């Protein structure tokens, strides 16, 4: 546990000091701010009926949101292992008494922490909204919980891919495409045969994420996100170990 804390602190500090992180954070806040503005405009138009699901706009209701999530996650996870491989620091790291699992979990947790910290400023939007209309805090909570689970899964995907190669760019690219493919499953289910539709539907991130934006916490979705996260982290540990057999 001490090792984990030491490793985690360094990872978080590095994310904090890397210029990429700031670019990523800015882009993220600009896009989410823009979505919020659209949301406010929508609420201001009296002609439209007020739906329960206005928060869908903030949490995953738009295409740009998913693009940004994909890009942000890829950018923050790309260097976790690739950079250590490229510069050779992995050799220094792995010859101290730490286990591969500690290393993987600390990197994962640091990236996840950073991603979730980016969401903290958005609480201000919720607060502002609360001033003007009645906000269903159950829905807000579910939205944030869903976001957390989603980020767990995407971060574990990013770290897994980063652990397979020594180029940050390749890691970014593959993770980005991978995440977009996961999202696309939702649109693809209409064009595949009935037999496959069920599979696509279950595998689709959007399908699993949607209930959260409506304030529903479904155990099936929670299990979906957590089990995929655990599986991908397991793969990462194996991939880090595999350096020994190459």
């Amino acid at each position: 546990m001490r090792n984990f804390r030491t490793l985690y602190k360094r990872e978080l500090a590095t994310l904090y000091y890397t210029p990429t992180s700031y670019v990523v954070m800015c882009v993220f806040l600009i896009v989410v701010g823009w979505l919020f503005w659209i949301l406010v405009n929508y609420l201001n138009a009296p002609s439209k009926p007020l739906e329960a699901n206005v928060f869908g706009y903030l949490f995953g209701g738009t295409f740009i949101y998913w693009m940004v999530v994909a890009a942000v996650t890829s950018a923050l996870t790309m260097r976790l292992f690739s950079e250590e491989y490229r510069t050779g620091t992995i050799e220094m790291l792995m010859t101290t008494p730490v286990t591969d699992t500690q290393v993987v979990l600390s990197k994962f947790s640091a990236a996840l922490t950073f991603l979730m910290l980016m969401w903290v400023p958005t609480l201000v939007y919720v607060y502002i909204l609360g001033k003007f209309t009645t906000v269903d805090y159950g829905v807000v909570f579910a939205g944030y919980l869903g976001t957390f689970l989603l980020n767990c899964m995407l971060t574990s995907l990013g770290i897994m891919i980063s652990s397979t190669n020594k180029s940050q760019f390749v890691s970014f690219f593959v993770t980005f495409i991978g995440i977009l493919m996961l999202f696309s499953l939702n649109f693809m289910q209409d064009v595949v045969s009935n037999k496959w539709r069920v599979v696509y539907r279950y595998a689709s991130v959007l399908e699993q994420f949607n209930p959260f934006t409506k304030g529903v916490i479904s155990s099936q979705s929670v299990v979906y996100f957590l089990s995929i996260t655990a599986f991908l982290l397991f793969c990462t540990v194996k991939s880090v170990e595999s350096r020994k057999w190459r």
Partner: protein
Amino acid sequence: MIQVKELVKTYADLTAVDHISFNVEKGDIVGLLGPNGAGKTTTMKILTCFMPATSGVAKVAGHDVFKESLEVRRHIGYMPENVPLYPEMRVNEFLSYRGRLKGLKGQSLINRMNAVIDACELGQVRSRIIEQLSKGNRQRVGLADALIGDPDLLVLDEPTIGLDPNQVRKVRELIKEIGRDRTVILSTHILPEVEMVCEKVIIMYKGKIVAQDSMSNLRSGNKKRYCVEVKAPKAEVERALLDVKEAYEIRTSENEGWVRAEMLSRLPEENISEKIFLVLQKHSWPMRLLTTKMPTLEDIFVEMTTKH
């Protein structure tokens, strides 16, 4: 401290380490020598548990490097070949981080940090960012990192490259000092350094160990060389020396009209100086030197790693 038996490491189709066996006792300072690509770094990576061997056994402090890897790593301070460091960290941040990973904390961490910063003369740069350090200073940070855990076994892969002569000397002193009660295994291409620092030498060549012995045994076990200097044309000296039947591997060099010839004798028990003298005397060339010398480590190294 280290027991290695029949260790083999193959990369895809290349055998980098080929059935090597050696032992290192506690308190030894061992020099691991060999030409480029001999397998020194590979051997060190196996000893430090960075990668497992293809076959064979290696034990450090009684623990198997593969099966009890964590325990082995607690005993080792390792400085890898190109000294990889985290560029964005400050020197003292980095050392504190590394110290924690190696199990230090609180006051003992602070004490150890001060001690290694002192020993490696990093006081001036302790709060600088590693990225902005000179190569030599980065090298010292790597050394400080290897030392911080106060390890029983230090594994140093070419520790003095990139250092200035003063610093090289300091590092040698430091290694000697550590070697009093610790075990050190270091690789280097600077042979005089090995002669100064190491008590034991292992010479590797193409993945195999071609010589391993204590420094003194290695030198006395190898044949002494005869040296003679006369004033004469080089070609004629070479021709004349062919008359000394016992001499072989004759190497000549010329400097300001004086020709220096070095040779080995086929008769190790007998001194052939007299024969050399008598042969050269016939030509009545001025002679200013006729002597024997012990082989230097360089002589041994060249002999071991060029034939075969």
